């Protein structure tokens, strides 16, 4: 960049050497109407109301949605059209997915009644936000259900051209005015998905049958015993990250005891997924009172009086009891039944018990595995029995009694009739061993029953713990309700809810220890297996199996496999566990249990993650106790305390407000001079400088320098302190179109004519510049073209000086459009030029809508203002947006281009406007504390004013410390690009005390944790959206920052 010879910006001032020649300036933003008017060059102050033309708010939804996805970032969001106003969408910061919408669109008004028509209207209004093109065809509404607190809910399933998405699951929730919130995970409508399979149904069935190598053609009479056809295939849509795949879901029931599901690509025939189902325990009480494992359909219905024997049925009523010692050496009364002189562990006293003479159901049954393992084929537990009803083992007494207590908890507190909510049997199996014959140091839920080992080294007697029974039964309840997937965050929530209800079943208020009655304290030296209130549990860190994270700062990102607890489900559960413990401590167990049960059963879905849990718990609290109630606030506080989600986010760090004297720099409408005014618009210099200003000026944060392009295309610098106008170049070139200066004055960004897709970044400190090419990233849209970038126009530096925010015109096959991007042009860590990574503000800007002229809030870089333009209707809508929460407001409806700019304290926005009489003015409107909500009426600030820019003359710290950088460390990070797992090897470094942090390109923290002394550290990246990220590794020797690409 030879033309920039020297331009050193220091605290002492600037030294300039100037060069170059002249060319004509082209008009910018040719798609925006030229508004150059020869109005007064002598603006005066005239505060008063203005009545700009207010346009219709409605913009029709467009077809042909752009699937333009970028990586997860606080500044990347789905486009939310203005007719969603009144709602707040919530996006998962880990993967960008929409998981909740809170609020009812203003446009809907109150519903006449809560019904499916209102649900449909709600979903239609949110279709763009949801990414669903044809709500009526693609969403299927279930029945409206009511909870015991009066709330109404409706389950939504999703399909595309009649083909169901098998993984999607979402719910709507109604308030007083109709449906007013959405939770769950739907997928954006597929684009160009061919739903005619090229791999046939019969081929898929044959493939699945072939893989079910234990196939037996069942005789006709046995076909009635299995839970469905022996072989069936259904066309489904399988979502794999961002890709929708047409697939066959094939169910095979190759024999009476097995049931498999296969997901087979309906175009390639590739098997995408296969898994088995745990089959039921057949409750046929045969002569030995054994239950046998079978995949029979609703097996209890097959248990007729004849099969069971009338004596057995008759003996069930009335029940018998026994008072025996449990594992605590306490006497407990258990419910049993007798048959021909023997007694059995079957509790028929619960309200679900039914005996219609043909069928019996609703029993609590406790079986004795006698050292068998349910992982082995020969597993054949027998119903617990006694010949005298007095010699029950203490284990039997505890298991059978605890099952009854846990059942009673769910029934008494939540009116839940058994695990399945439908009066199904509760099966408990005691004396379970490992498949290698050793004593089992564990207890578990296998999808059908509760299993207890007797302990080995780490545990003494697992059935002793009532919280163990509550925990395992809760797994069954979870399976029947939210059905949280058992891996990563949904799996950690599954474990957390199991612990929560384990605690509640145990009913020892304030004792948040889990498993404390069963552990060997030589192994669990804190005296408990887990501690919900203090998840670190007295252990040193993640390398200790007794430790759990207490805050998202300690979150452990682990691969999904058996060695790593399926992505840390028993590890990261510590974080939501602590949120619950804090909440329950604040509001009491009775309130907490109602809120959490409602959240689990009505607000969470299979894929819910920690952020969903916060929304679910807060919404449940809101439904029961009302918005703004102390309970709602306690829920918000509890999750905030552990760093989970929330409207405030965790990344909203504000700068200190510039404390200097405040001014307003502006031009006249004809752009023939610079003017200076007080903050309230009172003109101070009239004019400040007579110079034709062809680009909107840009000012350093200390208010010292303004830069702009003049009418001959030259870069100009105006010293606001000395009132000196000069050229930036020694020999000024005349082909510049726009220039902006970084807040600290060390760098500029400039565009040139003729128009092209390049931005020049020049660093005054090193006297080096580079042209950065603009492009539309296609990392996550499977190659769908998003059009070529023609040129950039408006630009503004982010306060830290790393990112340049710009708007650019792109040409797509469907037409041209303006949108807003962020380019990483500088790296503060390396103090060198950035890698040029581009992030878009929106991932799915609809056709016909353009956005531009973005500007940052002064003190909060997560707040921006920009204009949304519909050229067809000539609407220039000024939008304010919190990019952390994606909350936004229509700040002003304008008939002309707004050119917004925030006040020094982010308490107002100045913008171009017209009076009702058509006179051009600088308008101003106040902002609420959230920095996006407009306050009061817009007023005229400076008649005839244009391009208003507030500035203040104080100095403030815009920088962050630049750490020492590691070079030649030998530290290996691979593979890159990465798909599912990233490996970090220390090389010659010691990773003792080292930490890692995975960041967005904008520096937002996604994951962090300790590396520790490991040969190789594995970091799961499977949940990340494709795109670019930064891995920051901080060691005692220094810091390494490694760009990563996620495939």
């Amino acid at each position, binding site marked *: 960049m030879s033309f920039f010879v020297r331009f050193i910006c220091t605290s002492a001032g600037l030294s300039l050497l100037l060069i170059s020649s002249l060319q004509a300036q082209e008009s910018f933003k040719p798609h925006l109407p030229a508004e150059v008017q020869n109005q007064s060059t002598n603006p005066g102050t005239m505060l008063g109301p203005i009545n700009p033309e207010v346009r219709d708010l409605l913009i029709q939804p467009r077809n042909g949605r752009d699937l333009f996805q970028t990586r997860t970032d606080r500044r990347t969001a789905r486009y939310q059209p203005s007719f969603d106003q009144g709602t707040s969408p919530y996006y998962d910061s880990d993967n960008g997915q929409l998981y909740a919408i809170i609020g009812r669109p203003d446009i809907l008004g109150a519903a006449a009644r809560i019904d499916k028509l209102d649900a449909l209207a709600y979903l239609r209004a949110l279709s763009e936000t949801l990414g669903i093109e044809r709500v009526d065809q693609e969403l299927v509404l279930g029945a409206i259900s009511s909870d015991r607190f009066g709330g109404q809910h409706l389950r939504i399933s999703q399909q595309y051209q009649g083909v169901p998405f098998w993984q999607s699951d979402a719910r709507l929730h109604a308030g007083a005015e109709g449906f007013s919130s959405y939770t769950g995970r739907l997928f954006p409508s597929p684009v160009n998905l061919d739903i005619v399979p090229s791999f046939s149904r019969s081929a898929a069935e044959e493939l699945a049958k072939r893989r079910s190598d234990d196939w037996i053609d069942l005789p006709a009479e046995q076909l009635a015993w299995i839970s469905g056809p022996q072989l069936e295939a259904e066309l489904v849509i399988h979502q794999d990250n961002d890709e929708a795949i047409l697939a066959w879901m094939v169910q095979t029931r190759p024999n009476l005891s097995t049931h498999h599901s296969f997901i087979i690509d309906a175009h390639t025939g590739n098997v995408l997924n296969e898994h088995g189902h745990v089959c039921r325990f057949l409750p046929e009480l045969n002569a030995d009172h054994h239950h046998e494992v079978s995949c029979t359909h609703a097996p209890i219905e097959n248990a007729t009086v004849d099969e069971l024997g009338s004596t057995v049925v008759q003996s069930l009523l009335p029940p018998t009891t026994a008072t025996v010692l449990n594992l605590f050496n306490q006497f407990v009364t258990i419910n049993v039944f007798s048959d021909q002189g023997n007694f059995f562990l079957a509790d028929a006293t619960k309200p679900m018990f039914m005996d219609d003479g043909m069928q019996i159901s609703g029993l609590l049954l406790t079986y004795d595995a006698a050292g068998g393992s349910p992982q082995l084929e020969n597993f054949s537990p027998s119903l617990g029995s006694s010949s005298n009803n007095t010699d029950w083992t203490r284990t039997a007494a505890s298991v059978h009694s605890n099952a009854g207590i846990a059942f009673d908890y769910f029934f008494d507190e939540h009116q839940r009739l058994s695990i399945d909510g439908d009066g199904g049997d509760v099966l408990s199996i005691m004396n379970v061993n490992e498949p290698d014959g050793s004593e089992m140091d564990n207890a578990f839920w296998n999808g059908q029953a509760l299993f207890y080992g007797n302990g080995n080294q780490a545990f003494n007697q697992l059935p002793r713990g009532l919280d163990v029974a509550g925990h395992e039964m809760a797994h069954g309840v979870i399976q029947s309700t939210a059905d949280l997937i*058992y891996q990563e965050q949904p799996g950690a929530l599954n474990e957390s809810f199991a612990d929560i209800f384990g605690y509640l079943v145990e009913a020892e208020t304030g004792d948040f220890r889990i498993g404390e009655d069963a552990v060997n304290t030589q192994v669990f030296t804190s005296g408990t297996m887990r501690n919900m209130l203090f998840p670190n549990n007295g252990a040193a860190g993640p390398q200790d199996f007794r430790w759990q994270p207490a805050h998202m700062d300690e979150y452990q990102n682990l691969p999904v496999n058996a*060695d790593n607890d399926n992505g840390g489900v028993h590890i990261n559960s510590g974080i939501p566990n602590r949120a619950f413990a804090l909440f329950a401590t604040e509001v009491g167990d009775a309130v907490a249990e109602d809120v959490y049960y409602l959240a689990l059963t009505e607000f969470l879905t299979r894929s819910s993650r920690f952020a969903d849990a916060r929304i679910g718990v807060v919404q449940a609290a809101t439904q029961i106790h009302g918005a703004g109630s102390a309970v709602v606030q306690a829920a918000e506080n509890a999750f905030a305390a552990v760093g989970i989600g929330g409207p405030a986010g965790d990344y909203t760090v504000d700068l200190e407000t510039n404390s200097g004297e405040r001014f307003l720099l502006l031009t006249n409408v004809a752009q023939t001079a610079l003017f200076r005014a007080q903050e309230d618009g009172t003109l101070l210099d009239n004019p400040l400088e007579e110079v034709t200003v062809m680009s909107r000026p840009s000012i350093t944060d200390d208010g010292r320098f303004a830069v702009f392009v003049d009418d001959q295309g030259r870069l100009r610098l105006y010293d606001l302190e000395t009132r000196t106008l000069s050229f930036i170049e020694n020999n000024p070139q005349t082909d510049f179109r726009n220039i902006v200066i970084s807040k600290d004055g060390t760098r500029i960004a400039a565009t040139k004519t003729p128009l092209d897709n390049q931005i020049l970044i020049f660093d005054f400190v090193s006297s080096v510049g580079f042209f950065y090419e603009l492009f539309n990233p296609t990392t996550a849209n499977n190659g769908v073209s998003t059009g070529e970038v023609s040129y950039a126009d408006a630009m503004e530096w982010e306060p830290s000086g790393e990112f340049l925010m710009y708007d650019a015109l792109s040409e797509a096959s469907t037409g041209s459009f303006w949108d807003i991007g962020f380019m990483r042009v500088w790296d503060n860590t390396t103090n060198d030029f950035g890698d040029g990574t581009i992030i878009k503000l929106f991932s799915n800007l609809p056709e016909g809508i353009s956005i531009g002229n973005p500007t940052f809030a002064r003190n909060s870089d997560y707040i921006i203002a920009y204009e949304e333009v519909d050229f067809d209707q000539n609407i220039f809508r000024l939008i304010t947006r919190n990019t952390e929460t994606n909350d936004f407001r229509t700040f002003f409806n304008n008939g002309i281009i707004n050119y917004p700019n925030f006040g020094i304290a982010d308490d107002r926005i100045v913008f171009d406007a017209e009076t009702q009489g058509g006179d051009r003015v600088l308008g101003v409107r106040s902002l609420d504390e959230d920095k996006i909500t407009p306050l009061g009426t817009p007023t005229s600030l400076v008649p005839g004013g244009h391009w208003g820019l507030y500035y203040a003359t104080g100095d403030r710290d815009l920088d962050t410390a630049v750490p020492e950088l590691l070079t030649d460390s030998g530290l290996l990070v691979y593979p890159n690009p990465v798909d599912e797992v990233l490996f970090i090897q220390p090389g010659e470094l010691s990773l003792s005390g080292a930490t890692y942090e995975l960041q967005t390109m904008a520096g937002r923290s996604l994951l962090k944790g300790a590396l520790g002394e490991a040969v190789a550290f594995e970091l799961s990246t499977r949940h990340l959206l494709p795109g670019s990220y930064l891995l920051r590794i901080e060691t005692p020797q220094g810091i390494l920052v490694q760009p990563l690409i996620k495939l």
Partner: protein
Amino acid sequence: MFRVALFLLLLGQIMACRPSLDRLSEDRLHFGTSGGFAGSSRTYIISASNGKILLHESLTEELSRVGRLNKEGVAEVFRRLESLPDKAGAAANHNAFFQQFTDNQLVREIKWAAPSSAPNTATQQLFEDLMAMMRQLNEM
């Protein structure tokens, strides 16, 4: 049928060196159970190169040597593994599992919650045979 007795070369108490998770054979099979209330795993590890069998218990963080398979036994185990799916099953509260590593890379992972949900008979049968062998070892 897997002939367990044929393949066992029992090392008794002879320990050449203390086993370590950092020094596992690059080619190996992990199998066992994991999950449950404790979120623990009990994992047997068979080295493809020398047939050594280790047991890792996550709750006590103990890694112990339990026996050794002879060459024929190792060959049969890994031959039978080849007939199993590379990846199958879904995570559940408690799983049985196979994990095969080649050159320290995970090349096969199968998990299932009960015999009825094993991906096929061959998977369950290999698990049962290996566990029968482990039972024999543990009883010695």
